[in-house]
């Protein structure tokens, strides 16, 4: 690759340009991709650190998910707007700076208006900066796509992450504490003693594994169903490059072969 090309701010190879033009995405495919096919937590196994830490209650899971949803959407929008300005060489620091800006905004808002929430989520709010989900979406989606699809991608990925967090948080809170959103559930407490196990880190890993297992089973059925109709599951990008960079999606295998 020549020096000239590297200096070009938003250099894209002709293939990439072509792929960008050809990529057929519909709002529906982007949404399904974020929530189900490439669910960041349960399919790509990204953002595991906050996932295991904050899911001890449904409430903190929900708020954490919403914080990520906001940062993801906003940063994807900005990155997509700047995708032709950011030099290729320094794109990662640029992405991180943009993400960090929004995380700082979120943290300041939370500590100003919801101090209790700030205490319970603690370090995991600032840690959103280094959450893989944000960087992965910035790199594979927002830096290549137009603004509106990027915003939609941010929302759907955020919703997918929030749903995954909420699912784990509910299971762990119900089994581990006998409550749901701090409401005491019947049966627990008197008849069944809440299981401490689910509030501890091993319980987090356990529930995480079970959730991945369930989603995997659902996907397998979906895949069987889809294979008869021969649709492209990774429907966002028409080319292989996105699949190669994500790598976490077993659905791609069939396509590559």
């Amino acid at each position: 690759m020549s020096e000239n090309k590297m200096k070009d701010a938003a250099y894209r190879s002709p293939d990439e340009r072509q792929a960008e033009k050809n990529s057929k995405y519909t709002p529906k495919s982007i949404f399904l991709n974020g929530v189900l096919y490439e669910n960041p937590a349960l399919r790509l196994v990204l953002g595991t650190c906050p996932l295991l830490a904050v899911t001890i209650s449904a409430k903190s899971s929900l708020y954490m998910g919403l914080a990520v949803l906001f940062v993801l959407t906003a940063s994807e929008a900005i990155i997509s707007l700047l995708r032709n300005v950011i030099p290729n060489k320094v794109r990662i620091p640029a992405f991180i700076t943009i993400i960090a800006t929004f995380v700082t905004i979120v943290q300041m808002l939370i500590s100003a208006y919801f101090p209790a929430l700030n205490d319970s989520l603690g370090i995991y709010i600032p840690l959103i900066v280094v959450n893989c989900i944000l960087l992965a979406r910035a790199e594979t989606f927002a830096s290549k796509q137009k603004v509106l699809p990027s915003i939609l991608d941010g929302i759907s990925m955020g919703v997918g992450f929030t749903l995954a967090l909420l699912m784990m948080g509910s299971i762990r809170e119900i089994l581990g504490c006998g409550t749901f959103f701090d409401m005491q559930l019947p049966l627990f407490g008197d008849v069944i003693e809440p299981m401490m196990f689910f509030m501890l880190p091993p319980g987090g890993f356990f529930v995480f594994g079970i959730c991945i297992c369930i989603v995997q089973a659902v996907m397998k059925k979906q895949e069987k169903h889809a294979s008869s109709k021969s649709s492209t599951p990774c429907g966002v990008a028409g080319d292989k490059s996105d699949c190669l960079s994500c790598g976490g999606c077993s659905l791609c295998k069939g396509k590559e072969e």
Partner: protein
Amino acid sequence: MKLQVSHSPHVRDKATTQSIMRDVIIALLPATFAGWYYFGIRAVFITLLSISSCILFEYICRKVMKRNNTIGDLSAVVTGLLLAMNLPVSLPPYMVVIGAAFAIVVVKQMFGGLGNNFVNPAIAARIFLVIAFPKAMTSWTVMTGSWFSIKSVDAVSSATPLTQIHTAEAPSLWNLFIGNKAGCIGEVCILALLIGALYLILRHVIRIWIPMAYIGTFFLLVFFFGKTNVLHFTGDLATLSGWGDLFYESGYMLLSGGLMLGAWFMATDYVTSPLTTKGKLIFGMGCGILTFLIRYYGNMIEGVSFSIILMNILTPHIDEWTMGKPFGEVKENAKV
């Protein structure tokens, strides 16, 4: 035709999974009966509940996963029996069922059924219950009411002998040996456990290496680094009435808690222990060291199940280190 590659030695033998499991059940029976004798009819109920729910979960699981039915190999019965022997008699019945579900569904069937479980299902379930219900799993009782009383209130809570050592309430070594003490259903009567272990050794179901290394290592560690001896050598314990005191602590530690049950019946599980003799010795020594460390320096009273499960996880590596080399093979960089 499908060719299968498996570990040597390839021995022709009449033993089947079923016959081995039957032998294990027979060997566990004396200790089970002793537990029933000491803890009353509630212990019988807990044992039968644990076994039947293990069988039920095995059946349901195989059905749901569309695999062949494996109740006939009796491994679920062994798991259920071992689990019950590892539970305190006062445990609420639903906890027993949860434990059985964890053992069979999560530890055994989710990893592919018998032979594919990476840790012993009964121990994993016990540890799950200890972490999930710490209070219920560590409340020990001795029977006070009639033998036929099913209620757990007819028993008074008592400390496990492990916490009583060096106190006035500590049971005598003889009481520890015959099982007149607080503890889990199956671990109390050392005599019955040893009878069962002898049966397994004589029937060639288990080799002696793991229990020998386990118990031996643990004994030596307690003898040399236990409280009595350490106090003795630092001069803090002025009066030692003789050699008996030195052996008292190590003997006491061997006979209390789940050490004997764990060493003879759970550490020797085929699936989760090393294949070679050298590996078995390493495995047993590791269990002994870990049990000593947990009992003396950990914040839990009992460490047998944790040490066995940790060594279970190391088993594939131990097997790799100790695998014998095929006859006639020359080292790669050997001088010719």
